[in-house]
């Protein structure tokens, strides 16, 4: 790949991850670096994603770039029946970089093949969302000072949650992680990821609940258990309160322990947790801007 696209988290090596972490720290120290002065970035959101779009657009604005694009497919030429191929071919004539969110899986890899300028995947359906993973990693590094020897708790929907899958793949590149998967029977971590960990000799454990073991965690990564994921509504009713984090559960947790969540949260983290210093999900969102500034600078060789 000559162009520095970011499509899948596994496109980056361990060295790339560490470089992005260094750049993100640099942008956090000085967010308003006008490296995109005179540059145009296309922000193409074929489905709405307010948080991701605002985070990217904040990053671009802080770097002094100009933005063209749309925030949902309804206001683009897609409604006239234009193919993704043609939209990307056209936009890559205008912009220096494309940030794209699209509901179809694999759309980002395809866009990168068609485009003459770098493409950053801001989510392609249930497939990949690599910038989320990099901001999660930056949040972990900031709060733990290392990626090695961490005990990571992943809680909730581990079956469909692409954020936990990508984070698992990325952190498996570092030394001696331990994964604890906490999920209901219907939403267990898929077998392919467990095979991957076994092949790498990485320890993991599976649990149906986590109240008794949370004291071992360095990171608790919460995700939402959605009702519509259950074939049997009764099953959802049985488990819906098991995967809710409450402030009372945090009493005996490690001092360095932090709670992450990709947001939006519904009820899986009780609001009384927000006041706890171990709640880190809003800072995590802020870190997303620095991580995305880093990713953009890396994609365009600006640093």
């Amino acid at each position, binding site marked *: 790949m000559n162009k520095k696209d970011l499509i899948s988290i596994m496109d980056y090596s361990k060295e790339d991850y560490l470089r992005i972490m260094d750049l993100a720290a640099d942008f956090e120290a000085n967010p308003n670096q006008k490296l995109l002065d005179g540059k145009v970035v296309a922000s193409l959101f074929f489905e709405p994603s307010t948080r991701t779009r605002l985070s990217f657009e904040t990053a671009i604005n802080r770097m002094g770039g100009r933005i063209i694009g749309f925030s949902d497919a309804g206001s683009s030429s897609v409604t006239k029946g234009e193919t993704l191929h043609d939209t990307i071919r056209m936009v890559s004539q205008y912009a220096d970089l494309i940030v794209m969110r699209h509901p179809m*899986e694999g759309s980002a890899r395809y866009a990168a093949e068609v485009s003459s300028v770098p493409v950053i995947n801001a989510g392609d359906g249930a*497939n990949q969302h690599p910038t989320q993973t990099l901001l999660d990693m930056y949040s972990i590094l900031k709060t733990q000072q290392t990626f090695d020897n961490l005990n990571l708790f992943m809680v909730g929907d581990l079956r469909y949650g692409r954020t936990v899958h990508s984070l698992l793949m990325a952190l498996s590149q570092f030394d001696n992680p331990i994964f604890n998967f906490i999920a209901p029977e219907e939403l267990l971590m898929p077998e392919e990821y467990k095979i991957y960990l076994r092949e790498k000799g990485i320890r993991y454990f599976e649990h149906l609940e986590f109240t008794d073991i949370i004291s071992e965690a360095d990171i608790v990564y919460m995700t939402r258990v959605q009702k519509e994921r259950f074939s049997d509504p009764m099953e959802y009713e049985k488990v819906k309160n098991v995967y809710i984090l409450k402030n009372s559960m945090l009493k005996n947790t490690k001092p360095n322990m932090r709670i992450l969540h990709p947001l939006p949260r519904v009820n899986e983290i009780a609001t009384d947790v927000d006041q706890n210093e171990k709640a880190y999900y809003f800072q995590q969102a802020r870190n997303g801007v620095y991580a995305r500034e880093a990713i953009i600078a890396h994609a365009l060789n600006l640093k």
Partner: protein
Amino acid sequence: MKEHKKKLKLKVSAISEGTVIDHIPSENLFDVISILELDQTPNMITFGANLESDKLGKKAIIKVSNQFFENDEINKIALIAPHAKLNIIRDYEVIEKKEVTIPDRIVGIVKCFNPKCITNSEPITTSFSVISKEPVALKCKYCEKITHENQMVIK
């Protein structure tokens, strides 16, 4: 058995120059014809289906006159006819025998099983890396999902 083989030879007549593709699973005969674009060829073709086979139960055979295949071309059928054997015929003699092997990458031919994959909504040539050959498992270059042998549909 010998008596039977003689009859078989009579049913699908010999060719003087060309290629005989044997041991094709009967149910995949027409997919093999389509993948090798034999439905487009001007050359004479004979084929037989539902012939008895010790290995496959029912097998199919194709004889194409005056046509020879590159390995890359013939390996495309390995997905649906993994035990196919080729006899290269010159002047009624078998001068070479070939087997097919599944390549490490499959371009085109197979549909991605994932209905949400972009290759199923735009005219894109599919591309898979072969992550297992027995049974076949193909990882889509685009959506990264794995199409297993029992989910494979030929385009």
